[in-house]
């Protein structure tokens, strides 16, 4: 191996064995280079995208805000809509269900996704095909995936119950979607099935970008495969995992298709989550003002979560840049 150039930090990862410097601690030598960044260049780079987004969402935000404080004739009613929707019986149920839904979904999506990415990162024959097959749950149209699963899980027509009862694994068919305690976990499972490939592909892309010399250094230190995973792979893809997790949280918070197509939020609001409540309030009950009020509250909560998330990870990442 050629000796590292003067301005480069130590190329070895942090291992308990060799106790090398973290890559994150850039030597002071690099400071002069940073001075060459003009602050305004950053703004120029991000401007086009922000402009397009801004133009598109400015009006919807204003419109929703206005709608939430007026009634359907256009008169100003203050916080009336907020009070009405908060008093609805379904609102607290939906809120707590949303928490379960988000937590349950992202935990398994991330874990399964990362494990799958590690597997797909290995070199083996037929890897390209396995990778392409992994993509399929994500690519299948949401509504079709939902109805196919609903069909497969049907108590009487469903192939899953058939596979379990025919060889006698269980005696009675399971009411996956008709039992109050199984219906939400089943919805979460379907959501995990649908989205873990996304995590896998994104993390895999990150894994693919890990320089080989990091692996070599680890092997020289005698690391086993799992130590390699823990000390080389995961830290390298940490930014990707963090970014993906936030996206999963956002999507779970905004999710409608799977639940709406299968149970519509039932039975008896067991699977009702807030975005579906908003959708139903707007398009089924034709109460656009109340739906707007709920949207405003929901948006406030979500953007706070996002902002805190970004702030914390920026603080952590700042040290490692």
């Amino acid at each position: 191996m050629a000796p590292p150039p003067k301005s480069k930090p130590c190329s070895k990862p942090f291992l308990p064995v060799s106790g090398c410097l973290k890559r994150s601690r850039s030597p002071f030598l690099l400071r002069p280079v940073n001075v060459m960044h003009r602050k305004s260049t950053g703004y120029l780079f991000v401007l086009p995208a922000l402009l397009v987004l801004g133009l598109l969402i400015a009006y919807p935000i204003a419109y929703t805000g206005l709608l939430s404080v007026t009634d359907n004739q256009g008169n100003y009613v203050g916080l009336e809509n907020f009070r009405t929707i908060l008093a609805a019986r379904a609102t607290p149920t939906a809120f707590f269900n949303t928490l379960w839904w988000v937590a349950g979904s992202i935990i398994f999506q991330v874990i399964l996704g990362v494990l799958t990415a590690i597997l797909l990162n290995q070199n083996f024959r037929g890897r390209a095909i396995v990778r392409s097959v992994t993509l399929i749950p994500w690519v299948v149209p949401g509504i079709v995936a939902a109805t196919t699963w609903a069909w497969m899980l049907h108590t009487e027509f469903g192939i899953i119950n058939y596979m379990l009862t025919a060889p006698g694994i269980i005696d009675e068919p399971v009411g996956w979607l008709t039992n109050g305690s199984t219906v939400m976990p089943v919805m979460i499972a379907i959501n995990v099935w649908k989205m873990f490939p996304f995590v896998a592909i994104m993390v895999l892309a990150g894994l693919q970008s890990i320089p080989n010399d990091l692996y070599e250094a680890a092997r020289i230190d005698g690391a086993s495969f799992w130590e390699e995973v823990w000390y080389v792979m995961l830290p390298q893809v940490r930014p990707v995992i963090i970014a993906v997790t936030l996206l999963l949280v956002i999507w779970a918070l905004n999710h409608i298709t799977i639940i709406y197509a299968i149970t519509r939020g039932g039975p008896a609001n067991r699977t009702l989550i807030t975005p579906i409540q908003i959708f139903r309030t707007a398009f089924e009950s034709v109460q656009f003002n109340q739906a707007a009020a709920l949207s405003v509250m929901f948006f406030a909560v979500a953007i706070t979560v996002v902002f805190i998330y970004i702030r914390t990870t920026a603080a952590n990442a700042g040290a490692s840049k």
Partner: protein
Amino acid sequence: MKTRSIKIGFVGAVSALALSTGMAFAGEVVWWTPNFNEARARELVAKFQETHPDITVNLQVTTTDGLPQRVLTALQSGAAPDIIDVQHGWVNGYAQNNLVIPLDDVLQDREDYVPAALDYVTLNDQLWGMPYRIESLAVIYNKGHFAEAGLDPEAPPQTWDELIAAAEALTQSGRSGFAITGGGEVGNTIFRSMPFMWMNGGGIISEDGTQVLVNSPETVAAVEFYTNFYKNGLSPSSTLENDGTANRRLFIAETVSMYQAGQFDVNSIKTENPNIDIGVMTIPHPEGKDTAAVLGGWSFVIPADAKNPDEAKILLGFLAEAENQGYLTDTFPARVSAMDMERFDDPILQVYKQMLPFGRPAPAHPNWVQISQAYFDGIQRILLGDEDVQTAMDGAAAEIEALL
């Protein structure tokens, strides 16, 4: 500034396109009709153009999936066509929000219409939609199963007690006697359980929309009658995930012997399982009382933002003629005189025709969707085993009270 140049660029580049994207011209009527009407609608449009060459009709076909959302978005945003086909039940919501215009001046021959159909789309004494299609449910049964269970296939049950007895006799060897719905869209269960309440003298809310009736003794008795089919094992174990279509499939698979269905199901059953000997009966009623049904169907509405409402009204008048209405409808026409047409003489449709006079509109309350949702949640609580009938209905009553 970048912003303005982008906007100008778009508008400039797109103005040519805009001219060819179906914006309405004067004398053009844009009509949105669902895909199942398409063939017949085109015929009628051709016929109309012959006698009204100065009006062009632009027929645009909609899908049934997502239709309420699409119509509502179009109405709410001010970019609406001139005539839309909608279900009776949606018209109220539009009228409440002033999204459609009254059609009293277009209606001819008021007496020829089935009164319930007109009541459905009337609010504050004004007519907001023009019904052209009405239908109701009946009970479809498997005559073969009847014979096997020792029942007379030509003498189906007429009363509630007879229905329960028949269902019990039929529930054997993996079959369910009478399937109810407990899942899917709210409308499925409203259409199938509310008539029982009406038959018994109850309802969800009173006709004038001021009183809550859902926890009155008559209503509770009816709800108990309905949910007991599931509680007593006469309805399949998958009831909570089944809507009308699922029940039809179970019937086709011969695991259900009786279920409530509309006339469409008959054709599907014949195609998918020709071995079944199909029977149709009117919906059983309590001893000494009449049967009842919820009237379903479709109406035309003219949006408030329609570009050519006057020409649209002319087209409406044409479509409302008895002969044309009878041609367009998939089920039954809303006009009594049109019902004499030959296509409605099919013997298996007779029972459905018999049910029509007993059809009633759903109550016309601005919050009806939320009210029916509260009731449906109560039904699901009963079926889940969370609450008993009275408690569930009391809970629904409390919710509905707040909505009145």
